[in-house]
């Protein structure tokens, strides 16, 4: 075990996979000479050269689609898109091409590529640079979407994503890059499509992913001092979705709250709530609640940005309300 930041875990994993397999190539804006907007690719150009670490022009559709074609011919491109917001410029290539080519052509060619991109708000970057649009991609068969919340999972799931033969959207988060955690040494290959019980509990389940999982864990620790045992399910994979782990937890605790950074309507929480009503309805003691972003283009001004994004306080309040509604005695 080594303690390191989420950023370091990503960097070290990319490097290890580059060393392991010559077919792995990186491409994206400013990943080479500039060493990456968030320095995930620091030192890579020097070590691997410009055939393996490819600086691209500002042309998301062009270079993401080029990665699709590179993958079709046997390379394993890892694309960095500077933020999730900019993936919208490449969405035709991701959704209509990357996600379709294996199935639509009868399995004749796979598209082993990874798109790494950070989502998330809270940095005063205003409306166009603060979105959580992962559910757009999680909606699409043919794609896999993972959203690790900690450095160890970042390592294991990035390794799995690079070795996977399907296109994987690997969701990062601006506010996770500097978070630290223990990371197992040596090769770690995670399993896409599996949620984790990030913290065991017996009274209520909080379901979340990516940055929100850290908030959920923080709130769970607070409730422990009040004698409330909160179980935290970290989805880790948004497509496929591990419905069984979610429902098994809720069947045990009988109460569920979803914490998500995306907008509520049609969001990840909507899918989780529907899953719970189908998979744990008769064990549920209260309606599933969702703590999600306010439905506005995110404002720049700090007080408004704070108000619009889900916080630990918001989750604490909603967990308390669900406990009270079910006459849970603290």
């Amino acid at each position, binding site marked *: 075990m080594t303690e390191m930041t989420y950023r370091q875990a990503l960097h070290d994993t990319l490097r290890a996979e580059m060393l392991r397999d010559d077919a792995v190539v990186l491409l994206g804006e400013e990943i080479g000479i500039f060493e990456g907007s968030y320095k995930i690719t620091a030192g890579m150009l020097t070590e691997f050269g410009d055939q393996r670490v490819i600086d691209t022009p500002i042309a998301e559709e*062009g270079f993401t689609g080029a990665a699709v*074609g*590179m993958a079709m011919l046997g390379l394993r491109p890892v694309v960095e898109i500077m933020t999730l917001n900019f993936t919208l410029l490449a969405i035709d290539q991701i959704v209509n091409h990357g996600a379709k080519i294996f199935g639509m052509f009868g399995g004749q060619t796979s598209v082993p590529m990874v798109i790494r991109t950070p989502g998330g708000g809270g940095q005063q970057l205003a409306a166009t640079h603060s979105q959580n649009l992962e559910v757009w991609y999680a909606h699409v068969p043919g794609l896999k979407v993972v959203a690790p919340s900690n450095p160890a999972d970042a390592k294991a799931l990035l390794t799995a994503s690079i070795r996977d033969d399907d296109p994987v959207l690997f969701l990062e988060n601006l506010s996770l890059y500097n978070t630290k955690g223990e990371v197992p040494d040596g090769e770690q290959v995670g399993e896409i499509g599996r949620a984790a019980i990030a913290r065991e509990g017996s009274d209520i389940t909080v379901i979340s992913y990516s940055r929100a999982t850290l908030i959920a864990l923080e709130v769970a620790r607070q409730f422990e001092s009040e004698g409330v045992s909160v179980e935290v399910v970290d989805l880790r994979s948004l497509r496929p979705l591990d419905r069984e782990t979610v429902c098994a937890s809720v069947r045990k605790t009988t109460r569920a709250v979803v914490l998500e950074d995306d907008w509520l309507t049609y969001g990840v929480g909507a899918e989780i709530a529907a899953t719970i009503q189908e998979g744990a309805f008769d064990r549920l003691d209260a309606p599933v609640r969702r703590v999600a972003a306010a439905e506005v283009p995110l404002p720049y001004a700090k007080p408004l940005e704070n108000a619009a994004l889900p916080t630990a306080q918001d989750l604490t309040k909603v967990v308390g309300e669900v406990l009270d509604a079910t006459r849970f005695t603290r």
Partner: protein
Amino acid sequence: MASRTKGKADSGFAPPDLRAEPPATLRDYYRQMTLIRAFELRANEMYRRAKIGGYCHLNLGEEATVVGLMSALEKRDYLFTTYRDHGYALARGLAPGAVMAELFGKSTGVSKGLGGSMHLFDAKARMLGGYGIVGGQIPPATGAAKALTYRGDPGPDAEAVMCLLGDGTTNIGAFHESLNLAAIWHLPIVYVIVNNRLGMGTTVERASAEPELFKRGCSYRMPGERVDGDDPVAVREAARAALTRARTERQPSLLETMSYRLKGHSVVDPATYRSREESQRVRDLDPLPAFRSRLIEAGVLDDDDAKALEEEAEQQVAEAVDFADKSPDPQVKDLFNYAYATDVANASRRLPAEPVFPVADDSTGGAS
């Protein structure tokens, strides 16, 4: 930047001298053109008989272009096409029966019946897809050319990519982004604009500020050339020169072939946007009878030879229809077989009316 603008009064192109070509080659071009013509006419008929669903775009009128381009492309090269792809599949050597079976949505189709008319694919033939989204093939084709640069050095035997697109496609962003990438990355690729003068019902002049589309390569310092798409030899020569540049210099090119669509955009389009005179003019320019006459004039074929090739094509297409008709439908049990290339936990295999959790367990109240 060279444009062949002199010569033949009608199209403005000087036709190459057919006497310089081996007669067997020319005869084979005519054979392929008649096969594509017969196939497309029969596809049209099969669509009307509801054997073919969805969209169905035909290469009628573009046979010379198709055969010229595919003659220039070597087996080792890769092809990305538009959704108007039947002729290219045939000329690339895909079995007519397997192509027709794909149109019929049968499991014996080139894409196992999962793609249909717009999405013909054959990994072995290095035909890496017809693409239904306008211009969707351009970035992947560009990336495929990038991948080739990892395989070996430039040279006469190097592999290259040919990426086809329509005239309307030159206005999308992906076209420009891709040409720019190909130029700065020095990729072995030839982009071919198959200009049939109409994007659905919109003329090139109404859609494109620079209607001489091959000139759009100038922005990327890319050689551009316009050729007579009604002449397979002229098309082949231009394509071959561009492919040679791609192989030996990794210099991408933009080729523009000029032809006409004989019919509407797709099978269901009556092309009412064309005047009666324009429709007649297009019919008069039909490259098939024109090439036939030239071959007879040049002494390559006589009328009987031509008829024999036409009958042979009819026979092949009849067999293709028969094969497609008798082929089995894909099985519903195989619906999820190609959802993912790498198996993954918790992948959905649910049909519309099935529950998310198929097995109810009374003791735990639902999922298992």
